């Protein structure tokens, strides 16, 4: 059965099964497999050519909820959007969420996802109290900081390679309501971005992110957004996204030099006009793109790549300036260039991507060799500065780059489930 990743990579799995009850997992290890959720990973961590795909989407029940402590136990196929909309009314939200809510809890654990709130809350894995793992041998293991702690740490950010996560116990975060007090601050160059980031961390803002222009002659300018959970609960605020969808895949990418310059200039002006303080619903704050269904289709049948790097703080500004100049020179700008800082925290998982430094995420239409050449140039800068790339976005980094960026991989081998293989693991690990 054909699989397609979010970025447009394809693979042919031998079969896809969708267990709906824990008892359906008994014959898990009959053939080599890969556990998969919503398949929103850009590259190949959720693809497994020639193997069985076991979907977690049928296991989507809440198992236990304690409204006093905010501890939720649920099956791995529950979507983050479900958690947010169910518990926000009771004053609880996920402490960490990435830019889309249409992913599963199992996927969020396996990729140890991060979001705008890294300073306050770190990564998703930091809020997992315990989880249940079914191994291909049929063994069922409860994992937490006290029970099977090493396997627990390997499973957080373990890209699904340590077993099938069946259920997860999560600590939610108490909030006053569904709104955020937000502030949008336009900036003219990367230097300003770095001082804004520093000030934002010093002032203990809960969440921050920034968009920047990397294609026009004024590249380097951008807009910085930060927010704190709000006491206000004005229900008259417009929200809920655009509610539109890209109905089909156009024959060619709609993202090219011309549309990029128009978009980047236009978006900058819009952001400039939006400068100042606002009251923003959590859906608009966390998930602006969830309102546009299938937005990845705009890149056409060849799909696109996301290049997400993290670079240690020390050389971050110089390296980011250099990457920006390489991108500008290549003429292959990015629609959604996102820049943010990660705080200095102990990583939750053995292979966690988020680490102290600056992360840059760029989307590029797949233009074959031209794009590969640009990536090679960017890789060199990232590697030189001691940085690495995000596996859940990656489709092409070299084995050397992965192994250097994730030194935990040697230790990880001890906890790997021999019955699980992904196209990503074949490419850079096995």
């Amino acid at each position, binding site marked *: 059965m054909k699989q397609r990743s979010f970025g447009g990579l394809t693979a042919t799995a031998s079969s896809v099964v969708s267990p709906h009850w824990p008892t359906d997992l008994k014959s898990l290890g009959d053939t080599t497999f890969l556990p998969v959720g919503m398949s929103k990973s850009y590259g190949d961590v959720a693809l497994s050519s020639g193997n069985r795909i076991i979907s977690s989407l049928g296991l989507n*029940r809440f*198992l236990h*909820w304690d409204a006093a402590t905010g501890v939720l136990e649920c099956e791995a196929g529950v979507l983050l959007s479900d958690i947010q909309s169910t518990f926000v009314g009771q004053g609880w939200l996920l402490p960490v969420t990435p830019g889309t809510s249409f992913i599963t809890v199992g996927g969020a654990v396996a990729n140890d996802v991060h979001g705008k709130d890294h300073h306050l809350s770190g990564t998703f894995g930091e809020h997992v109290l315990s989880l249940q793992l079914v191994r291909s041998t049929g063994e069922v293991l409860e994992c937490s900081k006290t029970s099977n702690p090493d396997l627990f740490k390997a499973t957080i950010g373990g890209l699904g390679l340590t077993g099938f996560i069946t259920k997860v116990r999560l600590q939610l975060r108490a909030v006053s309501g569904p709104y955020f007090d937000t502030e949008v601050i336009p900036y003219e160059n990367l230097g300003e971005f770095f001082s804004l980031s520093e000030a934002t961390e010093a002032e203990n803002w809960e969440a921050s992110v920034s968009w920047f222009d990397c294609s026009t002659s004024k590249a380097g300018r951008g807009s910085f957004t930060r927010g704190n959970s709000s006491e206000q609960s004005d229900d008259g605020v417009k929200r809920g996204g655009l509610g539109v969808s890209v109905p089909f895949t156009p024959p060619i990418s709609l993202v090219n030099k011309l549309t990029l310059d128009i978009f980047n200039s236009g978006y900058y002006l819009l952001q400039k006009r939006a400068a100042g303080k606002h009251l923003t619903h959590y859906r608009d704050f966390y998930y602006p793109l969830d309102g546009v269904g299938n937005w990845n289709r705009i890149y056409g049948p060849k799909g696109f790549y996301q290049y997400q790097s993290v670079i240690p703080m020390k050389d971050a500004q110089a390296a980011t300036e250099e990457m920006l100049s390489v991108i500008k020179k290549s003429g292959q700008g990015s629609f959604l260039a996102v820049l943010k800082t990660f705080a200095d925290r102990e990583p939750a998982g053995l292979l966690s991507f988020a680490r102290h430094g600056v992360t840059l995420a760029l989307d590029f239409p797949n233009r074959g060799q031209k794009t590969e050449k640009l990536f090679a140039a960017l890789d060199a800068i990232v590697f030189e500065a001691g940085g690495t790339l995000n596996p859940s976005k990656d489709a092409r980094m070299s084995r050397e780059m992965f192994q250097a960026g994730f030194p935990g991989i040697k230790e990880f081998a001890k906890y790997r489930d021999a019955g699980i293989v992904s196209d990503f693991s074949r490419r850079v690990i096995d």
Partner: protein
Amino acid sequence: MRIVVVSATSVIAVSCIRQWASESAHEFELVGRSEERLESTASDLRIRFPKSTFTVSLVDFDSTSSIAGVVKSLSAKPIDVVLVAQGSLTDQKKASNSLEYLKSELELNAVSVAVTAEAFAGALGVQGFGTLAVIGSVAGDRGRAYNYSYGSSKAMIETYAQGLQQRFGSSKVSVCLIKPGPTATPMTATHEGKMADPAAVAKTIVAGIKARRRVIYAPGSWRLIMLVVRMIPFTVFKRLKF
């Protein structure tokens, strides 16, 4: 409303319950074969919808006295809607090779549905109002080599529902036949092709029941598709591979 859902752990049933409960608070009676699955489904629903209530009852579809007993105890209080949702997607090849398997599938998909529907129809007739909704399938609209065991069970349900509709034609009891197209459920997990999203199917079903529609195709586009399929002359139909 007080809503009884038979085979409440099936994906379409759960999706309908989630749709109803997200619209407003109701009193749900969940009926099914497995206590473990019913309890797990009920716990999930209680967390999602704290304003609604969920009670669990066990039934054995092979036993008419079990079915009658459940109907009797549930109809002690007025019932607004009954949704009958049991079914199993028969593997036609297996059914052709094992008469035992064929018989047990027909018993679940046709006999148990008719018996359950009849028992609840009696209770609704006594109370004088309410909606009985039964899940059939687009597969019942025309027999096909690919799935005629399943399809014929669903065709029987259709005729049964038509009879009930005429019987209650001049009363306040309404009978509604639901015909989902292929939907992404455990029954179809190994099937290729485009499957409808159960949440979208449930939305159509719940709206149709509210409007007291006689036949609900879900998604609605299947009404037209099946009209065309039924009109294809047999001489052409027999050569088709679908």
